[in-house]
C-alpha cells in the first residue's frame, strides 16, 4: 500500500501542501503566533519536513529533534490545545488535497505519536 506521501504525489505535491497548510496556521488565531515572525523560507522548509514525515515520506527527524525544535515554544506556552489545532488544520489540508478520511486518520495518528516529544514530556519508559 503506497504511503499517503506517494499517493498525493510525493515531493512535487509537497510544495502545494505546504502552501495550504502554512496559510491555514498563519490565519488561525489559536496557533498563528507560533509560526509568525519566523523567516518564511526557513519556516516553509520546516513545514515541508514535518509534512513529509506525517505523510509517510522519507524523513530523518528524531524524537530529540522534535524536542529541541519545540523547546522554546513550550517555554512560550505551547500545549496540547495547540497540537490539537495543528492536527486539525493538517486534516483540513489533506481533505483539500483529496485524501480520504482513513488516510487522514492515519496521518493524525503519526502526528500524535510525536506529541510527547513536541511538548517536551518525559519519554515513555520501555516496560
Amino acid at each position, binding site marked *: 500500500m503506497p504511503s499517503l506521501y506517494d499517493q498525493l504525489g510525493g515531493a512535487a505535491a509537497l510544495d502545494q501542501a*505546504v502552501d495550504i497548510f502554512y496559510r491555514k496556521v498563519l490565519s488561525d488565531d489559536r496557533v498563528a503566533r507560533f509560526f*509568525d515572525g519566523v523567516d518564511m523560507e526557513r519556516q516553509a522548509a520546516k513545514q515541508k519536513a514535518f509534512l513529509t514525515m506525517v505523510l509517510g515520506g522519507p524523513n530523518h527527524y528524531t524524537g530529540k529533534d522534535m524536542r529541541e525544535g519545540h523547546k522554546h515554544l513550550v517555554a512560550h506556552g505551547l500545549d496540547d490545545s495547540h497540537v490539537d489545532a495543528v492536527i486539525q488544520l493538517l486534516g483540513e489540508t489533506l481533505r483539500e488535497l483529496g485524501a480520504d478520511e482513513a488516510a487522514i486518520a492515519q496521518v493524525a495518528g503519526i502526528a500524535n505519536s510525536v506529541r510527547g516529544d513536541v511538548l517536551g514530556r518525559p519519554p515513555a519508559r520501555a516496560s
Partner: protein
Amino acid sequence: MPTVRCRGAAIDLAEGETVLAGLLRAGVPVSHSCRAGACQACLARATAGTPPAASQVGVKETLRARGYFLACQARPMEDLTVAVDDDPALAVGARIVSVEPLGADVLLVRVRPDRPFEARAGQFVVLRRPDGLARSYSLARVPDERDDTIELHVRVIPGGRMSGWLAAPGRAGDPVELRGPAGDCFYVPGRESQPLLLAGTGTGLAPLVGIVADALRAGHSGPIRLVHGARTPTGHYLVHQLEGWARPSPNFEYLRCALHGDPAQNLALGSLDEVVIARWPRLAGHRVFLCGDPELVARLRKRVFLAGASLAEIHADPFVPSAP
C-alpha cells in the same frame, strides 16, 4: 573552538563568533556590508574544511559546490582555511561610466565591466572600491547587444561612505570591481500569461524596473502590475518613463503609492502593503517580486502569501542596510 586560517593568520574563534567577526578582530580586511547574510559582500571560499550549511544559504549552487560561503553567517564546527577578497575568480574589473541624478536623493550609476558579465536584471551585485569598501546594489539594466553597461540606482545616504563617494564629482572613469550576481528576483520567460505583481520601496524600484523591461521585451501578455512606494511623492522617480511605458501598453499598469501627499492620478495614499492588498486582494496564480525596505518586504511577503500567492512564486529581495 575552531581555528580560522587566512592570509597567514591563525585565529581562534570565540564561542559563537562568526568567521567575519574573527577575521576583522584579527585585523584581516574583509569586504562586508549587511552582516545579515543578505548582501553577499563577505563571500569567501573555504580552501580547507567545510563551511557550515547555514553560511551557504543564498550562495549560488555552482559556488556552494566549490566551498564558497558567507563569512558573516559562518560559525564553523571545524577548522577552516579561508580565501577572501583576493580571489580573482569572484571578481570582474569595471569602470564607472557616469553618475547622474535620478530623483531627490537617487543616483543612476552606469558601470562598464571590463569583460562579459552574465547577469539578469533584478539580480544584485557587490560593487567594490579599490580600498575594499563594498556595497550591494540591484541591477536595473544588464549589458546587451546595444549597451555594454550595467545600471544601478543608488540612494545617497547622509554620511554614506559608498553613496557619498559615488555622488562626489569626478567619479567617471574610476575603476571598481563587481562581484556576483546573486539573487532570484529576475524575469524567467515561459509563462507569458501569468499575472505579475511587482512592489517595492525606494531604490527597490531598480530591480523591478529591470524585470518589467525584460517582461515587456519578452512579450509578456499577462497583467504586469508595478507599485512603487515612498514616504512622499518626492521619493518617486522614473515617473515619466514608467507612465510612458504604461500608456501604450494593454497589460502594464504602474501605480505610485505614498504615506503622505496630495491625492493625484495613479497615486494611492497609504502604506505599500495596505495599498497592494486593497487593490488586488486575490493573488492566487501570481508571480510576485518584492524589493526594498526589509520590514515592508516581510509584511508584504506574508500578506501576499495569505492572499493566495504560492511560496515558490514569491521572490523577495529585502534591502538590508550596511551594518557599521
